[in-house]
């Protein structure tokens, strides 16, 4: 090898580009040589890399195909799409009965809400979903957000209860289905979040009384299962009240949920507070900021950003936990579904029911999860390499 061959001028153009790429020149991103990309190569490398891999791939593929084909046969080929009564579906035992969902899905979504008034919970559900979606837009994160929620809640309240503007009054005992699940989770979380921030701050406070109060509350609520709190609220509480005084069952459940969520969220937020380096506190003190300003301007914005993944995790878990109101006879989405399965006219289509309910829950939980990933990326730009 002669000296001049090692000089840059004598290199082939693609080698030059590679050298530049290695040196970190940004414009020199080079496509891989032919035959090193694409799905075929990926499969060869990852699925059929060795004899053992190939066997596992073929076996799993066969199982997947078998199960998938079975499901496809049940859900599409053999399914009954339209039927006036359940008998048509029962005659066709090997397939799904989607006619059942056509008949019963509205009931699962609205529960026992009066039939003629079902447009009201429809609007409320859409309104809540719309508010949730627009809250996701960071440009809305100012006074407009609060105003929107206040107005939205007021409108939802009027629509759900009625009793004004010629709308017939509908008490909470008749509410059911999706709006109940949405109201329970959204209102309880909205009430719990500020409470949780105060509890988390209180737990780290230097004032012993406040600290003891917050620790006591959090540990007490966190130390019992949600279901026992719900039973306390729905079964025990009425016994302590004087006879004739009853607090609305739905409200009692809502309060129990808020307390429970507050305790859990408080611990999540505390995790964020602990992750803030001491220097941040000291710097804020050195600037002469009051406790309030320090918390509001320096600590919380950083701490909350850090805990987005666990926060969303708690939200998702909580959204699904609302189905526990089954135990106290509130008609949420799941209770309405279970009731639909038992209707004698359409009895016994449990698979269809639970698939439908799972789909509804999945759509909500998956959207929350995707949004949190986006938010994390967006807020943590400064931390990314």
């Amino acid at each position: 090898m002669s000296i001049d061959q090692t000089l840059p001028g004598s290199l082939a153009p693609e080698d030059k580009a590679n050298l530049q790429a290695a040196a970190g020149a940004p414009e020199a991103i080079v496509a891989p040589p032919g035959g090193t990309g694409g799905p075929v190569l990926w499969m060869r490398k990852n699925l059929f890399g060795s004899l053992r891999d190939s066997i596992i791939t073929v076996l799993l593929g066969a199982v997947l195909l078998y199960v998938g084909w079975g499901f496809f046969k049940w859900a599409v080929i053999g399914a009954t799409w339209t039927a006036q009564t359940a008998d048509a579906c029962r005659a066709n035992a090997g397939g799904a009965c989607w006619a059942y969902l056509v008949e019963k899905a509205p009931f699962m979504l609205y529960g026992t809400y009066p039939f003629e008034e079902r447009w009201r919970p429809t609007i409320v559900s859409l309104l809540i979903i719309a508010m949730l979606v627009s809250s996701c837009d960071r440009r809305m994160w100012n006074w407009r957000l609060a105003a929107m929620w206040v107005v939205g809640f007021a409108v939802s309240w009027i629509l759900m209860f009625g009793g004004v503007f010629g709308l017939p009054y509908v008490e909470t005992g008749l509410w059911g289905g999706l709006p109940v699940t949405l109201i329970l989770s959204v209102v309880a979380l909205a009430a719990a979040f500020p409470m949780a921030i105060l509890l988390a701050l209180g737990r780290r406070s230097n004032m012993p009384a406040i600290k003891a109060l917050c620790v006591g509350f959090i540990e007490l609520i966190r130390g019992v299962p949600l279901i026992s709190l719900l039973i306390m609220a729905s079964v025990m509480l009425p016994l302590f009240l004087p006879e004739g005084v009853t607090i609305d069952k739905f409200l009692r459940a809502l309060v129990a949920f808020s307390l429970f969520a507050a305790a859990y969220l408080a611990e999540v937020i505390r995790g964020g507070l602990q992750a803030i380096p001491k220097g941040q506190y000291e710097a804020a003190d050195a600037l002469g900021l009051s406790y309030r300003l320090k918390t509001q301007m320096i600590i919380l914005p950083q701490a909350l950003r850090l805990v987005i993944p666990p926060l969303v995790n708690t939200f998702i878990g909580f959204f699904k936990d609302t189905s526990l109101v089954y135990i106290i006879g509130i008609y949420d989405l799941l209770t309405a579904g279970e009731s639909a399965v038992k209707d004698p006219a359409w009895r016994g289509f449990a698979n269809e029911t639970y698939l439908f309910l799972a789909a509804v829950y999945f759509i909500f939980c998956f959207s929350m999860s995707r949004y949190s990933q986006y938010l994390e990326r967006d807020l943590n730009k400064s931390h990314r390499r």
Partner: protein
Amino acid sequence: MLSKTIIAAAAATLTAFVAGQAMAGAKLDAIKARGEILCGVSTGLAGFSIADSQGKWTGIDVDVCRAVAAALFGDGNKVKFVPLSAQQRFTALQSGEVDVLSRNTTYTQQRDTALGLNFTGVTYYDGQGFMVAKKTNVKSAKELGGATVCVQPGTTTELNLADWGRANKVAFKPVVIEKLEEIEQAFFSGRCDAYTTDASGLAATRASKAPKPDDYMLLPEIISKEPLGPAVQHGDDQWADLIRWTFNALVEAEEYGITAAKVEEMKKSDNPGIKRLLGVTPGLGKNLGVSEEWAANAIKAVGNYGEMYERNVGKGSPLKLDRGLNALWNAGGIMYSPPVR
């Protein structure tokens, strides 16, 4: 000043407590003042209390409350249904969240006494039975020795099965499965030789889940008594009377052949019993503290007992239950109303 406030508050609490006890007899007045009945039902039980596709409550337990509302207010819709889980049902009654529990509750001594309930009668006689496939050629539960029997855990059903097996020296092999869907699946796929639960439940399962309902039969043995009926709190005697006699009036109406459609026509009847029942001869309504039209309104709202039965669980419903024990006393059953007079 402060101590005065505390004393006043304590006195008010005490008064409220005492008043609460004294007022218990005036439950009926409280309901009248409210203008609607609070009726505790189950969150969903086919034929007894279940919301249909339009969210409207239907079933025998529901109709009992509608009948009482019609007797009291002249309008069967003046009732608010409160769905209750099994855990909350008794406290809901004790705390006054509901006025009456009409929630397929078995009438037992312990509930009538220690739990402080007053059952107002039996609206449905149920009992635990067995279902087998006809091809097994089993004709009696006593032939089930060594057979596998599907049963749900944690209920009296499981205990009844064990008790009956011991008493009759039949050694079952219980297969315990929690979920209704799963237990039905297990029985029809042949995992168990027999399936035991309340006879109404067996018939409902056979009608809606069996691949061919005619391939399955209920065995003649009924191994437990499950009389279901509405209950109120101890002390609400007048209110209990109204429920008791409203239901009795529905049974009496079936005996007289008064149907919902024929109420007005039957008022012209010469039969003194019918005249008393329908308020043509006044007196019975006054005894109950309601309008003389009470029974006529109740029958118009839900029909007589036979109509109510056939519509919800009998021939007119998907459950297709026979009348069995629930037939009138003069038609082979034990449904019997004391004289409404």
